[in-house]
């Protein structure tokens, strides 16, 4: 009754559709470049780790991963920290301009990165943050902070107001109530919000590439260097691609039991 006839077939076909291109990427990352170009093989006939070896030994490659993770983590921490009190305020209080402010925040989530690329470049160059993880972390706040506020607001609204009142009657100060009572209650919501912040910061490239040049260049941008005089280094490109999928896959694995609830965003 819950599901539809032929659901297994539909699901299987869709999962194959999702996995096939990824398989092809993985497959190619283990092939030599000559095998890639000369023959069409469904699996590596002469498997090689040379592309991975190169990425892990060349500092300019692996530092890209560290750079990416650095700004993603920074951004997640900033977003959640500033969004928590705001989510509480939007959930519990009415104040001057609250609705307009909320809409304005959400509208920033919808702003195209392309619009902001250039002004950000100017802004962060002017204040000396250009080519640091901070520039990217702050820039990504423009879409992650509104999202975090929105998700957390849903979860805070799920906490009965009586709990606040009881805590204040028991003599809790506001900061103590916030840290000791509210945050543990919406821990899963914080996890969900952090997951989404991580996700959107990790997958974004346009701003990350525009705001960095050498020092803080993200892995995704470094990948564009695989064109050499001898043509495309397909194997290296594929290996780098596989390595960018792994952090995301790990994160999903850890939150797999919360995915369904997480996507309800606390408001179903």
């Amino acid at each position, binding site marked *: 009754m819950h599901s539809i006839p032929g659901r297994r077939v539909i699901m299987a076909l869709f999962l194959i559709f999702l996995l096939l291109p990824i398989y092809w990427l993985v497959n190619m990352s283990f092939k030599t470049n000559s095998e890639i170009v000369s023959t069409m093989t469904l699996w590596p006939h002469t498997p090689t780790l040379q592309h991975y070896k190169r990425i892990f030994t060349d500092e300019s490659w692996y530092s890209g991963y560290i750079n990416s993770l650095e700004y993603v983590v920074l951004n997640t921490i900033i977003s959640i920290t500033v969004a928590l009190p705001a989510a509480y305020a939007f959930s519990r209080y009415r104040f001057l301009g609250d609705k307009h402010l909320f809409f304005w925040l959400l509208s920033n989530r919808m702003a*195209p990165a*392309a619009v902001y690329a250039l002004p950000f470049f100017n802004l962060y160059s002017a204040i000396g943050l250009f080519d640091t993880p901070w520039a990217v972390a702050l820039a990504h706040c423009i879409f992650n902070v509104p999202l975090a506020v929105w998700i957390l607001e849903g979860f805070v609204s799920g906490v009965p107001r009586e709990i606040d009142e009881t805590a204040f009657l028991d003599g809790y100060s506001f900061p103590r109530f916030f840290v000791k009572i509210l945050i543990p209650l919406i821990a899963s919501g914080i996890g969900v919000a952090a997951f989404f912040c991580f996700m959107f910061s*990790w997958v974004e490239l346009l701003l990350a590439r525009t705001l960095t040049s050498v020092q803080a260049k993200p892995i995704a941008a470094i990948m564009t260097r695989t064109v050499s005089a001898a043509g495309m280094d397909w194997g290296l490109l594929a290996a780098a691609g596989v390595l960018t999928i792994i952090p*995301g896959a790990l994160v999903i694995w850890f939150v797999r039991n919360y995915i369904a609830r997480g996507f309800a965003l606390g408001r179903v």
Partner: protein
Amino acid sequence: MDKTINQKAWFLVLPVFLVVAFSAVIPLMTVVNYSMQDTFGNNQFFWNGVGWFKELLDPSTDLGGRFLASLGRNLFFSLVILAIEVPLGIVIALSMPREGWTVAACLVILALPLLIPWNVVGTIWQIFGRPDIGLLGYTLNSLGINYNYVSNEIDAWVTVIVMDVWHWTSLVALLCYAGLKSIPDAYYQAAQIDGASRWAVFTAIQLPKMNRVLLIAVLLRFMDSFMIYTEPFVVTGGGPGNSTTFVSIELVKIALGQFDLGKAAALSLVYNLIILIVCWVFYTVMTNAGVERKTQAEKEPAAELKPAGALQPAHALQPKEGVA
């Protein structure tokens, strides 16, 4: 639940306000400033008033022509992927296994494309689709279908659309699945007892319970597809010709490629405005849906059906017409 009025709440919102304002307002002011000026390089700017905006909306000029063409392509693209991803996402959500380890496995695989950096998504489809080294391209061509997304416009479009479906249908599916999970079993049992057909269960129970998450899904998918840049840029570079040049790609071309800051800024503003308007419409619809939900809970006594014999005056029986 009635919220209390408390202006001090502004202090709680202040950090968010500052962070977002720093990232949004200052750059936006720069954009507005640029949009009124012209530059010939060397950091020399000339006042141009609303000149760029006039040009932008006039299809006979170069800028206007490019903008309106890319806007048209972009709208078409958004509509196509919504028309595919929303029904497909619902079907996938309905096809989810009920329990056991397969649930987690399906969820993990579904979520996987969402966490792949967007340019890598492009790379994956580039590698997958190329006629020489890609499984898809090679297979299609050996089946006698002449497929080449680099030279054929239709092939390029199909590739970009299939790529977006691959990338984002999971989001719709996961949102719908979350909505479906919130339906109590009693609803299905009642429907069974009422003799409802599979289709009736879908229209009478599942769809109404999903409509909030569906609204979110449509909103997110519309916005993100309207802003799409990285994936098609990596795969097709906007080509062949300009056939897959969407607004963002056009914008980056003008701003970072030609360093035509005035034009780019004007385009940005109009682009942003369109998105803002659509966003506002969705937001209004969504909050109204929310309000309706709340009034349902709060105003219940007003709509109460009195027990036997105690008939209410006729005017109290009028249903309250909300925005449904």
